[in-house]
């Protein structure tokens, strides 16, 4: 379970260009659920995901991840939680060009000190799962949009995280690939993972696998639905 307790995020605090990306927000994201944060561009979705995913600290308020208060943790511990607990799927894919799909997928596991052969074995299983076995040695710039998307999902899962976070994952996908993506998320949810997606795409928030939707606008949660 992830709990936000009056979490607030302000950028450029005290400066003329001060901007409140997220107003005081209290929210409970239940474990083992597929939750969607729905809202238009600039509504604060990405900021909310960054706070939940330990990528940024709130300006005020507290955040609890799986029962642990993370706001006051030093950077090292935050990174460890980020690596072990979360798997990220970014809007821009954020794969590293020049590397193969395999190298991109095992990248988050490098600092864990596991043997490379072990990592490759785990990655191979993920490539099989996503029908990418023949692409593992391909450089990522040679992959299609759908393939690149699946590589980012594989990368998000390499450390076997409890929570998968996806930010506007269908922004660069056509309808067919978007549906496939949501089916994959449903499968991950079925495996017992918590899935949190930020999106303003109806193909995402109207998908049958989605169990809970929060509406966000102007940095405030203004509603929730099943």
């Amino acid at each position, binding site marked *: 379970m992830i709990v936000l307790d009056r979490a607030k995020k302000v950028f450029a605090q005290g400066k003329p260009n001060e901007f409140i990306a997220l107003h005081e927000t209290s929210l409970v994201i239940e474990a083992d659920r597929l939750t969607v944060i729905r809202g238009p561009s600039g509504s604060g979705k*990405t900021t909310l995901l960054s706070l939940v995913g330990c*990528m940024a600290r709130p300006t005020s308020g507290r955040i609890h991840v799986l029962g642990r208060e993370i706001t006051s943790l030093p950077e*090292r511990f935050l*990174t460890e939680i980020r690596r072990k607990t979360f798997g990220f799927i970014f809007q821009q894919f954020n794969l*590293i060009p020049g590397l193969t799909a395999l*190298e991109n997928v095992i990248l*988050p596991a490098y600092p864990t000190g596991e*043997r*490379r052969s072990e990592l490759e074995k785990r990655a191979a299983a993920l490539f099989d799962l996503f029908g990418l076995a023949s692409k593992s040695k391909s450089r990522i710039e040679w992959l299609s949009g759908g393939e690149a998307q699946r590589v980012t999902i594989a990368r998000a899962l390499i450390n076997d995280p409890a929570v998968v976070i996806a930010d506007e994952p269908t922004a660069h996908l056509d309808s067919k690939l978007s549906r496939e993506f949501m089916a994959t998320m449903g499968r991950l949810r079925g495996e017992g993972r918590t899935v949190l997606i930020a999106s303003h795409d109806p193909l995402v928030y109207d998908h049958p696998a989605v169990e809970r939707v929060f509406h966000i606008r102007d940095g405030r949660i203004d509603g929730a639905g099943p």
Partner: protein
Amino acid sequence: MASGIERQKNVLDFTLSSLLRRKGKNLALLAVYTLLVFLMASVMLATSAIRKEASLVLKEAPEMVVQRTVAGRQDPIPLAYLEKIRDIAGVISSDGRYWGYYYDPVVGANYTLLVPRDEMPEPGTIIIGPGIAAARLAMAGDTLEFKTQLGGILELVVDGVLARDSELVASDLVLVSASDFQAIFGPSNGLATDLVVRVANPRELSTIAEKIAARLPDTRIILREEMLRTYDAVFSWRGGILALLLFGVVLAFVIISWDKASGLSQEERREIGILKAVGWETSDVILMKFWEGAVVSVSAFLLGVVLAYIHVFFFSARLFAPVLKGWAVLYPQFRLVPFIDASQLTALFFLTVVPYAVATIIPSWRASVTDPDAVMKGL
């Protein structure tokens, strides 16, 4: 422990693939870096090798040499002077030395002919230096011809070739018997080329030198220590001049590397952001950048030093030879005997590798301590 090693291996693995991804840029950097190390190491190796050569030359030299001068130039010295020197308290022995230069038109080189006091070759035979052996393609059993002062030809059989202990000492040397020496250069008539003096107590050298100068006013006295100091000063000074010129190159390199390192490219910043976002710690990013800097700088260092070694010891430091050797002090043609001063190499290592590593790490650290959420915003 094992996982620590695996972590290092994994990060190093990523570093190497990163370097390969930016092949052009990194190769250019490696080339400039290697050139810098090559230039610095060449000067250092050449200077220390020449100084070493000079000290080898002088190690064999007598403590004191007495030469007669006429109108400021060296002239054969009467053997009668020996008695006057031997009378001085503290002198163990004093002997005449016979040596001279012989021009060989066949190879266009000057030889130094010397009559050794110990183990003098049999008349009719000679022992030659490796330089002559190579130039004349001569080996033991071959015959070399020498023109005598009377216009005749003297054929001498090569009895052996001197060891390559020091090319500079031995290269152009011909050890010859006293009788053959006189046949080539003419009878000595009670004269020697110069006199060598050995003393019981080295601390009395200067006192004895003063006494000789007083007794034999037409002579000059050369002390080994003085020569050693002169050589040392001359080569240190020349090396210093070159190092000073190269300091500009070093400075330029420091500016380039600082600029490169402090201004991480957008691509590199983005990459650091992704690594942080997917769970790399700041220390992992710094470790990666450390390996990156280490791979580039250590490769450049090793490559530069090896190239400098080849340049100095196989090609006689051709780039700097005119400045370092100088035509008047040493022989124009010689190959340096390999000699490496470990402390100088260490200094070079710290002057080139460490600043680069630091210059690479600091900006990466600055980039990696920022929140990774920038990457979420599509930086």
